[in-house]
């Protein structure tokens, strides 16, 4: 290409589009966060966040637990699948991705009907007499276990919906590990535990890190899961933001301030992540 300037012209519409619809909106969030309704500069939005500390803490705790559970389930599964033959791997990864193609709300709705007070699990437990047994053992008189509308249900929803995001990057990194490296370690006398600890795990770390980010970010910002599975009893950050924009408490300035703080938390987490892995080698998503 002789003329670089000319050759980069096709990107112009895109650059304008991204500037107007990605950069400007983010700038507006910052501006809104630091202004009041009358338009003057204020820090009030941030000081009133203080009364929502519990929401921040709850969001962080629930999404961190969900991320940890995803890692504990996802890593062994990704590892086990990577040891199978190519056809098995292909089919298994497709089966793991398939639920992600089903609408998020429908997947969550499916769990609602399982966890309900009169849902499948509770009906099953009372049919086989477990509920009665619990009642007799502890001297209670319950007719169902409290499953839905609990923090546990919200965590379950996070794990169920975002687990594939953990498995896929870890699997894609483990498969790419050069077999020769592992054989070399074995030839040098490492047993299988040492091979895993000193070779496979460190090499799969970029996948682990991108998996953690991909589970944590949507978990910490969700507002659907807490509404549908938490029964509105445990408000999360996403709910708080949604309330400022769509709910009765319409206040985009406060909403922007909360969004800004959430973005900063997420970015800080990601910066810490990138410190651990060298950051350059971001695992490919799909």
């Amino acid at each position, binding site marked *: *290409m002789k003329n670089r300037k000319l050759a980069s012209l096709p990107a112009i519409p895109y650059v304008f589009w991204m500037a107007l619809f990605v950069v400007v909106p983010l700038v507006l969030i910052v501006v809104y966060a630091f202004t009041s309704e009358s338009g003057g500069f204020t820090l009030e939005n941030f000081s009133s966040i203080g009364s929502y500390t519990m929401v921040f803490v709850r969001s962080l705790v629930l999404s961190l637990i969900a991320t940890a559970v995803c890692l504990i389930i996802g890593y062994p599964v990704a590892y086990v699948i990577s040891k199978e033959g190519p056809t098995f791997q292909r089919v298994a990864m497709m089966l793991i991705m*398939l639920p992600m193609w*089903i609408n998020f709300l429908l997947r*969550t709705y499916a769990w609602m*009907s399982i966890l309900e007070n009169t849902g499948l699990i509770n009906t099953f437990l009372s049919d086989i007499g477990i509920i009665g047994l619990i009642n007799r053992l502890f001297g209670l008189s319950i007719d169902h276990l409290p499953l839905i509308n609990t923090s546990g249900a919200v965590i379950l929803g996070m794990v*169920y919906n975002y687990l594939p995001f953990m498995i896929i990057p870890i699997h894609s990194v483990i498969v790419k590990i050069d077999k020769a490296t592992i054989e070399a370690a074995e030839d040098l006398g490492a047993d299988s535990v040492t091979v895993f600890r000193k070779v496979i795990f460190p090499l799969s770390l970029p996948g682990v890190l991108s998996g953690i980010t991909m589970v944590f970010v949507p978990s910490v910002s969700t*507002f659907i899961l807490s509404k549908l599975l938490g029964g509105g009893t445990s408000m999360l950050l996403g709910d708080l933001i949604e309330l400022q924009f769509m709910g009765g408490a319409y206040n985009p300035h406060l909403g*922007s301030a909360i969004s800004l703080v959430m973005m900063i938390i997420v970015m800080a987490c990601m910066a810490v992540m990138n410190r651990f892995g060298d950051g350059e080698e971001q695992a490919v998503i799909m």
Partner: protein
Amino acid sequence: MKKKNGFWGRFLTFLLFFFLYAPIIVLIIFSFNSTKSRTVWTGFTLDWYVKLFHNSSILSALYTTLLISVLAALIATIIGTFASIGIFNMKKRPRELIMQVNNIPVINADIITGVSLCILFVFLGKKLGFELGFGTLLIAHITFNIPYVILSVLPKLRQLDKNLFEAAQDLGCTWMQAFFKVIIPQIKPGIVNGLLMAFTLSVDDFVISYFTAGSVETLSMRIYAMTKKRISPEINAVSTILFATVLLLLIIINVREARQEKAAEKRRASFKS
């Protein structure tokens, strides 16, 4: 390394698939249940499907979703493909800056993208006198689709042999001819991939639509409204249809890929002999 998994490895994989699919299977089974109960099986019926196809709000939501997804995917693919070529030809500095901006909608939580666009549209709407609706929804969808198109086209451009374009021009092609006859066919897999990805992302999106659609309703938003108030097996019927469609599409894509791979192998084999 090639030690196969023992019983426990297989068992773990099985447990995972059970966990992933049990809720979906329950959902599908109860779409055929003759009463509204979601736990007790009372008999087979297709009533909910019949009802579904007479439910005008679901049908119009489906129409909006398909229209938005097709339009947004096409526009995003066109803008994104041209942009990829432009970005590819840029110097390192501006290219890196642009790629960082490109990654913002990919990395950012959906709710932030939705809320920030909501602020922009309300702000501009007050100034220019429009309301949130189909137009703003379309713009929002194009905005979150473009980055994925670029992420799937750009790698194909990197694989491209740079001399091809100049060779075509040396052989008498104009810039345009060389572009459409040489470059586009070479990066076509990336473009198609980007288009499909953009389409599925659009169909699946709820959060960003929720904040930018105004009074327009997409299928996801309809489902959300349905889960919030009374619960009806019509939702199960919708999910079953969507699941079957996705499954069919995936099978077709995979069979096609497998066939292409086989054909390529045959070609290679015939070269050798």
